[in-house]
């Protein structure tokens, strides 16, 4: 009794699924530095996004429902071990450039787990163009998109943006998690087709996918140079340790408007 928090907080189960958070009264949701991203502060903090489709989970993640003045709001826990974007946020990236209402081109959408969180972040006013070349992954992605109308699944090779140019408009941000040796080129191609001037890109670089023998730091530096050559100006780099091994996230801007002129 004197411990309402405990009783309410999912009973004694502690951590069973989202149960612990669900209970929620002891959980306080506060917005993250990044618009559209929230932090559920409770016994254990968690990174969460506001569920665009309340009542449904995408990949078995935990959900946290918070009642605020009689209005129920459901959040989905975003596990940094499952999403590189979440890992970047947890690692302390300065900006992800995906505020609500923005349009994001997501290269390497895979099954749509992260895409679902991005769709939560951009909200109903935003759009997520999710490009995935694998049909098997694409099937799950399409299933995700069926419930989330702000996701436009594109099962195509990101190397050939012309194939889906009719589906994609200009975007504000490109997120790339393609893990391909030529990912810099892939990003550049798509940026040239769909990224607005001054738009941003967020690239997750897996060093072992580019050169498993070279030092990861050298690989990152080399990739950064490639991006610079394609007018993709990097602004920040962040390691994804400990969530990923030999990964780094590079955030930058495409064709930044000249400040001087």
């Amino acid at each position, binding site marked *: 009794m004197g411990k309402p928090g405990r009783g309410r907080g999912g009973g004694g189960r502690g*951590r069973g*699924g989202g149960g612990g958070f669900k209970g929620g009264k002891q959980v306080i949701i506060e917005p*993250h*530095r990044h618009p559209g991203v929230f*932090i559920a*502060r409770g016994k*254990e*903090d*968690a*990174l969460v996004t506001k569920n665009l489709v309340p009542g449904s989970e995408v990949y078995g*993640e*935990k959900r946290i429902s918070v009642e605020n003045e009689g209005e129920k709001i459901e959040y989905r*826990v975003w*596990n*940094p*071990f*499952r999403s590189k974007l979440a890992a970047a946020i*947890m*690692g*302390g*990236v*300065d900006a992800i450039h995906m505020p609500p209402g923005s349009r994001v081109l997501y290269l390497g959408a895979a099954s749509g787990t992260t895409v679902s969180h991005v769709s939560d972040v951009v909200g109903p006013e935003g759009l997520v163009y999710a490009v995935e070349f694998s049909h098997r992954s694409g099937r799950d992605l399409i299933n995700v998109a069926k419930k989330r109308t702000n996701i436009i699944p594109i099962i195509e090779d990101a190397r050939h943006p012309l194939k889906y140019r009719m589906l994609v408009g200009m975007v504000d941000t490109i997120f790339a998690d393609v893990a391909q*040796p030529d990912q810099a080129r892939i990003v550049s191609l798509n940026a040239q087709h769909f990224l607005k001037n001054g738009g941003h890109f967020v690239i997750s670089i897996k*060093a072992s996918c*580019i*050169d498993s*023998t*070279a*030092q*990861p*730091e*050298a*690989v*990152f*530096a*080399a990739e*950064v*140079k490639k991006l610079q050559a394609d007018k993709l*100006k*990097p*602004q*920040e*780099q*962040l*390691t994804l*340790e*400990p*969530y990923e*091994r*030999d990964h*780094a*996230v590079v*955030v*930058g801007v495409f064709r930044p408007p000249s400040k001087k002129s």
Partner: protein
Amino acid sequence: MDYPVNIKADAITLVSQYIQTVDKSLAQKFIEKSKLKPSPDKLPNLCEIIKEYIKLKKVSALKDLSRGAESSGVYSDEKSKKAVQVNGKAPAANKKKESSDSDSSEDEKQSKPNAKTVVPKPQAKKPQSSDDSDSSDDDATTKPKKQPVKPQQTNTQKVVKKQSSSDDSSDDDEKTKPQQNATVKPKATPAKPTTGKAQVTKKESSDSDDSSDDEKSKKPAPKQPVKAAPAKKQESSDDSDDSDDEKPKAPQKPIKTQVTPAKKPGKVETPKKQASSDDSDDSSDDDSKKLPKAAAKAQVTPAVKATPKKKASSSEDSDSSDDEKKPAQKQVKPAVAKQTPAKTPVKVETPKKQAASSEDSDDSSDDDTKKKPKVAPKLPATPAVKVAPKKQASSSEDSDSSDDNKKTAQKQAKPAVAKPLSKPTPVKKQKSSSEDSDSSEDEKTAKKPAPKAAQKPQTKKESSDDSDDSEDEAPKMLPKTPVKLATPAKAPTQESSEDDSSDDEAPKKTPAPTPKSKPAKKESSSEDSSDEEPQVKTSKKAAESSDDSDDDDGPPVKVAKKSKSENAQVLAECYYISFLLIPVTGCYNYRFLRLNMSSPFDEPQVKTSKKAAESSDDSDDDDDGPPVKVAKKSKSENAQATENGFQAGKKRKASGGDPTPAKKPYSNFVKGTKVVSTPSEKDNEGDSNANKTTPFRRVATEKVEVDPRLKDNSFEAKSGARGSWGERANLDLKHTRGKSFKHEKTKKKRGSYRGGAIDTGVHSIKFED
């Protein structure tokens, strides 16, 4: 001079006796003036003495033949060589004396030797000064002069043969001579004498002495380059042939223009041409062609025209020649040859002329109206020649083009000569030579070297037709020139096998040039003087013909040659013409040496190398079309590579040539290029393979500059790592690798991970502008 009085008295007695038989009053006057009393002794008749002397000479000649060495004051070596050569030469000389026709018609071999000799002569002349060739030509052209000249030439030839006998004589005689001879013969009866002359000149040129003489006359430098060029050309194989053809043509043209006697010069040239192609000889056009050549020879032509003048100037020439061994050799040769006295005098003159060809040319030009025009060209030419050596030495100025061209022409002519000799396609060469000259005229404005070369090939392909083309091309010549050059090269190489097909192209091109050239030739023949341009053109053409690449620019040419040589080498590898390449390279080297050194001695070496190259080439040519073709191809390829395969193709196209011929050459070029490229590709592949041996890597860690802040990608290195939400995960995962890492990470994915508070700070590393 200081003979004992009694001997002098005897001599006077003999003379007076002889004169008395003619005119007693004159004899009395003679005795009075001599102030010597005729010796009372009974003296044999002067005629008898001469008879005995002739007999002795014959005997001595036989001895020489048997011994292989006479004591005529010439070098023992030369004498020995001469003796050997004399056998062949003597007959040639005799033939020449007796009948130029017989020589040409009789033995191709003999004529070949002659031709060979001629080739050297042109070279020598050219190096010395176009005048030399001209002088020979002039001699031939002017019948009276010709006779004397011929003897001189023969003498010179003999001498040359003797001198060069060791060096080139054998090779040249065998291969080149036959061709040249054949060509020469067809050209004309006078041609025979000319051939003889040509031989002489060739011999001289071939001889180190000759070269040295030339050098003395200022020409040394040019000669050396020229020689080198020929050698290079020869080495290059086809290119050299082409250039040679062109060169010969040029000389021939001037000759023609200058005078009918020009034929002899033309013949001299023809030998070169002949080597390239016998057809020219056959056709009367050849003479006309020769005229154009004469223009090219311009320098030489003056000499030819000047032949009388030359005689006058011969003193100068002789002086120059005297300086050189040649005079001595020539003199000796006459004696050895036992040629008629007339011949000997002639010979003397010829040597002088050759030696002082430049001077002679000037003189001749002055004398003849044609000469005047020629003189103008000659003057430039001569200066050019003189300059040429310098230029060649300095190797760098196209502007002098005319001069350079002349020089180059001379050089080219030399190579050309060698080439012709070597090349079996004498007819083609002749045609080309005639055509070339025409084309050269047309091309005057245009890049002379390239056009010439191109024209030459064309001309080669098409004997008569080419002239028309050349005319058309004249404006085009500059662009065409490269093409022509390429074409020539192609033509020679391809011609053997593909030339026939290419002939179509050549005909197209050549036809145009030939008509032009023919008119030009005619004009030049009758109006050589009037047509300074033609001459200049011819000279330029000749230069061009000699080396398309080389001719224009001394330095560029050299480079081009080098590049050609390199290309040639590659090609050779492809075609298994290593031997050709070697000679070419050698020639190139020689050229360079000459350019740098410009020493007379270099020339002999070059000549020898050239000869060797020629001999090899010739042998090849003789043996088969295929080898020759290969050589030609290599040359052509080289030329193309150096100059511009594209240009060549364009020229052909522009000429409206037949696509097929063009294609063929082009194909060759393409092949060549392909071949060249293939090696490079192979190299690349090899490189890649080498790389493959090392582990493949997209990123060379050593070569990438890493920002010091980004040196460590680990979690601990990140700011704010301590106390962060992921710190515990890091503790679990940092010691894991591979599979274990995945396993640990999978556990974290389940959501059982508890990291504590989430830090919202910024811990990324910012890139500064």
